[in-house]
């Protein structure tokens, strides 16, 4: 193989670059305005309530954070597991991981009741709390990946590359385990309290992260008028197929476990049969769009070399993934907690026994979209000033 040269990514037309950045900036500005509005008014202006305490911003935030750790996989495969075809993609993988995590964290922090007290979260730790661990895991991830990125770029750091790659890989597994455990360790609610949440989140991160990676990679090489070989894309595509299948397997295992235990039939019935919007999201969003369509696009011989099919499959994986997290976060809260087994609540001063209502509002969505915009803007700016993309990726 000939020598790889990396070069800053310049868009074919500078106008397009700046217009693109301005568009992202506009999304970010609207999102920040929305966050200010929500903080200033208080959360009553959102769809969130004392029943649905985590809303759309959390869906976006968790989605981005999970995807972030998955985006690093390509680098890990390159330097930890020694896949030569993935090696040239490692730098971009690191940059994308940082970008997605920063975007997700911004959304998460701006949805706090008291974002002004972020310093308290940085200085007061309750080590029994998964959230406190996540504060460390998230900030550590950014630091480790930044150094890892440096080691991948700077020849003088070459000898640290492998150990750093290992460290980053284990750190990202810990991070996603921590994110999954936010739900896995909640004994109160029927949809959570399952150890499978942690490994399921790890597999979800593989899938979403790779899908994000493929889309941004294709976009970047179109954007910069550079050559991107089919061989490499096909490899990524096949890997995505495996991950989508693995997520489907975990979803199956999770639901089957619940279906076996009689006390969990309620929540299963809610998700699979009569949960209204959530049932639709599960079957149409998560299963059809997020799993079946991408698997078809990936494995059908008809689309073997089609770049559009690969991009479409990745987008479908992301849409399905978004619905999957929406169902975990929102439907898990909407389904009433069973405080009194064997009893039916016929009157309550606080919505006991009722399916909670949640309609997301525009400011919540704007904040979430701003998180994605921040991630993309960081990647666009980063790729322009750091040498992350090989000049060419022909086969």
């Amino acid at each position, binding site marked *: 193989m000939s020598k790889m040269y990396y070069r800053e990514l310049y868009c074919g037309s500078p106008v397009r670059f700046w217009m693109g950045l301005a568009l992202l900036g506009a999304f970010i500005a609207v999102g920040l305005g929305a966050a200010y509005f929500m*903080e200033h*008014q*208080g*959360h*009553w202006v959102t769809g969130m*309530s*004392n*029943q649905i*305490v*985590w809303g759309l911003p959390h869906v976006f935030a968790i989605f981005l954070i999970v995807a972030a750790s998955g985006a690093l996989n390509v680098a890990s495969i390159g330097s930890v597991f020694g896949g030569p075809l993935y090696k040239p993609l490692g730098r971009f993988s690191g940059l994308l991981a940082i970008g997605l995590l920063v975007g997700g964290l911004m959304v998460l922090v701006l949805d*706090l*009741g*008291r*974002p002004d*007290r*972020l310093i*308290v*979260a940085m200085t*007061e*730790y*309750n080590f*029994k*709390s*998964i*959230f*406190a661990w*996540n*504060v460390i895991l998230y900030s550590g991830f950014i630091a480790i990946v930044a150094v890892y990125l440096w080691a991948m770029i700077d020849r003088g750091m070459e000898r640290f590359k492998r150990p750093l790659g290992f460290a980053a890989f284990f750190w990202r597994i810990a991070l996603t385990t921590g994110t999954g455990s*936010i739900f896995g*360790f*909640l*004994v*109160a*609610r029927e949809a959570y309290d399952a150890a499978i949440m942690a490994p399921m989140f790890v597999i979800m991160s593989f899938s979403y992260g790779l899908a994000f990676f493929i889309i941004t990679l294709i976009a970047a090489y179109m954007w910069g008028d550079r050559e991107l070989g089919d061989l490499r894309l096909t490899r990524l595509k096949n890997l995505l197929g495996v991950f989508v299948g693995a997520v489907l397997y975990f979803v199956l295992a999770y639901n089957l476990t619940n279906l076996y235990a009689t006390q969990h039939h309620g929540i299963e019935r809610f998700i699979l049969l009569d949960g209204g919007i959530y049932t639709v999201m599960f079957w149409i969003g998560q299963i059809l769009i997020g799993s079946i369509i991408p698997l078809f696009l990936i494995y059908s011989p008809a689309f073997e070399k089609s770049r559009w099919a690969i991009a479409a499959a990745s987008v479908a994986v992301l849409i399905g993934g978004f619905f999957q997290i929406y169902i975990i976060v929102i439907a898990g*809260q909407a389904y009433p*907690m069973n*405080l*009194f087994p*064997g*009893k*039916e*609540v*016929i*009157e*309550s*001063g*606080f*919505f*006991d026994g009722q399916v909670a*209502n949640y309609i997301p509002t525009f400011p919540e969505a704007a904040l979430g979209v701003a998180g994605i915009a921040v991630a993309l803007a960081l990647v666009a700016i980063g790729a322009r000033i750091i040498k992350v993309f090989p000049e060419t990726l022909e086969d």
Partner: protein
Amino acid sequence: MSNKSDQPSVDRRQFIGGTVAAAGALTLAPGVILHAASEKGKAPSGASGNHRWGMLIDANKCAEGCSACVEACNNEHGLTGFDRPATDAVWIRPVKLKDKQTGHVNRLVMMCQHCEHPPCVDVCPTNASFKRIDGVVLVDRHRCIGCRYCMMACPYKARSFVHEALTDQSVNAPRGKGCVESCTLCVHRIDAGVMQTACQEACDKEGHSAILFGDLKDPNSEISRVLKSRNSVQIRADLELNTGVRYLNL
């Protein structure tokens, strides 16, 4: 900061001693015991691990259509609603239940169950949710960042998030936008030596006496005696949280 600054001045101590001694001599309303009377002449020493405060709620006595305890709680803690039931604070709520098999109907009140092993305290990243040494589970609003993880973790739906800016709060319960809150077991009364919560007081006054507050660690307290002689239950006992609030006839 030096520690001497938080000691009350001497003349204040003498004054307290005098008041408490005088108050202790009074015949108080039924069920009202001045706990501080036993420590007369002492400076306020704060919560003590010699007590564990709890409540006992008799589902048979909780009267249909009554909301005296809810109103008393709202009044005591300055919980003002905004006519938005989904986001207004609820510290105590009546719940009416029907047994799915037998059709037997029960009514009771739910509030923070003041667990011995509170899930909200486990999950709080900043130690804002905490359990006082006397078993009262509270939120330190000076540390709460409003992440609402405790609301996700609470099996009793006991917590509320303050969804709007507030003014004119009660001195009994300073509270504000962006923090989580729940029943404090009238901790300001406990600290003042008044051994009766606002909800119990209201319930007694209505003549129902469905709520009994007391010290679970004191074998001679009324609540301990009733708990010993009658069969009570914890809600979601399967979670092994050892709640401080127990129920009769549920």
